[in-house]
């Protein structure tokens, strides 16, 4: 599903690379945590996969597509196969929970009929069927993140990326959210979560890719966050 070969990213006005010669393979259907302290390159890792930024060096393949050399016209098509969840939720403030989720289907040109049946379904999956008509500022952080998750998942993408999804949530809510991600993973969706939330990593016991100063320092199946980090 994801293949990175020798990926290096150096931001302008920084001399140290954010990612340094990273090789990673993630198979279809896996659930992977990318962990590491702030500034270790987790967010860069995620942003590269959706071509929000380009690597300085290296090859990136997502679902068989060469992301680095993808024509900019084709980038929207790539992103439709990748659901994204962010620490700051990135919900449209002037749309309700329902509209935010329906929007993702609107964008990819799904007919109204499909939107009307799938949107409530996925909102029910994340447990928000009673708050469909609330605006983001009327929802709690956990609820907003669940709307964001519903939006990411509503068109059943083969890959779901989450960048610090629990960064703004308290521990109990975080665990709930990760359980939701786990349920989505069980439907066959590949899930990649970038996080420095030690508790959820240890709780889930999934594959862990640890980054430090842009390098992969550990790649372990059924791993934990690691005491040294």
């Amino acid at each position, binding site marked *: 599903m994801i293949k990175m070969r020798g990926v290096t990213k150096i931001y302008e006005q920084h001399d140290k690379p954010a990612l340094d010669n990273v090789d990673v393979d993630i198979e279809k259907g896996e659930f992977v945590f990318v962990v590491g302290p702030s500034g270790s390159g987790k967010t860069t890792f995620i942003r590269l996969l*959706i071509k*929000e930024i380009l690597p300085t060096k290296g090859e990136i393949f997502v679902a068989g597509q060469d992301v680095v050399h993808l024509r900019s*016209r084709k980038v*929207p*098509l*790539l*992103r*439709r196969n990748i659901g*994204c969840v962010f620490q700051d939720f*990135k*919900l*449209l403030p*002037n749309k309700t929970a329902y509209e935010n989720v329906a*929007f*993702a289907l*609107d*964008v*990819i*040109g799904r007919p109204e009929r499909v939107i009307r049946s799938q949107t409530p379904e996925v909102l029910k999956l994340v447990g928000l069927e009673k708050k469909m008509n609330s605006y983001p500022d009327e929802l709690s952080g956990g609820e907003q993140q669940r709307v964001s998750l519903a*939006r990411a998942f509503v068109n059943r993408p083969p890959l779901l990326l989450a960048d610090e999804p629990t960064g703004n949530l308290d521990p109990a809510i975080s665990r709930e959210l990760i359980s939701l991600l786990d349920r989505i993973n069980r439907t066959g969706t590949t899930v990649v979560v970038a996080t420095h939330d030690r508790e959820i990593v240890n709780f889930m016991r999934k594959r862990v890719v640890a980054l430090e100063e842009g390098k992969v320092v550990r790649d372990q199946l059924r791993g934990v966050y690691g005491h040294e980090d």
Partner: protein
Amino acid sequence: MRIRPLYFIGEALASFRKNWVMSIAAVSTVALTLFIIGMFTIVAFILSSVIKIQESKVEIVAFLKDSAKPEDIQSTQNELVSWPEVANVRYISKEQALERLKEELKGQPEMLDAMSGNPLPASLEISLKNPRAVKTVAKRLDGRAAIEEIKYGEGVVEKLFVVTKVIRWAGVIFAFLLCFASLVLIVNTIRLAIFARRKEVAIMKLVGASNWFVRWPFILEGILQGLIGSLLAIGVLYLIKVFSLESVMQFFRWLRVPLNYPQLTQQFYLLLGYLILAGAVIGALGSAVALRRYLRV
């Protein structure tokens, strides 16, 4: 991706309502600038027809010798008519000249009484297609047997043409600056409105929206704002025309400038049409231009 006009129009209308403060800012900017441009254009129209009328009043008068033979007069007249610069040649006999003078001095008969016989010469009055050729034509005409003296308001004419030239160029430069300033102002207002929604644009792009999918609602919204703004502007211009036409006409009648009112009215309505078009185009282009940098995500 299918293009769904109804969806885009719906989005545009919804965001127009939800972002009404910015919408009002954009609409009033468009209205104000188009109103100023319209007002300026109307003044320029009137000024340019006044200039044209003044310039066409310039003509050459060739006074004829009392002793000139009719054949010489006739041949000079024929020659003049054949010149490409000349629009029209009128022969004014001594008697006609006296009639005119009597007409002009109606109020002061004592002036006429003091005159013995008819001291006025006959003349040829030459009007030109291009009044600026007045000097060359006058020079070429000089020295004909029948002609005593040529007058074309030497000195005054040159000054008149300098003045009209300056007015015309000043008008063109001012119009150019005005259009430029308006465009910058409108694009900046729209840019501000889009800046307030840059997160929205970024989210659309992250969810996988194509650039045109993001652009259409903004462009339609821009057209809507431009249209409303231009309609406000032309509404005010129309009211001004209705309420001030009579006094403007009176003013120019008093100045003895015979303006061509039907033609000016036609130009006025044409201008209103162009202003509506300009509003829509500026709105659409402004949105597209202002959006460009936020689409690069």
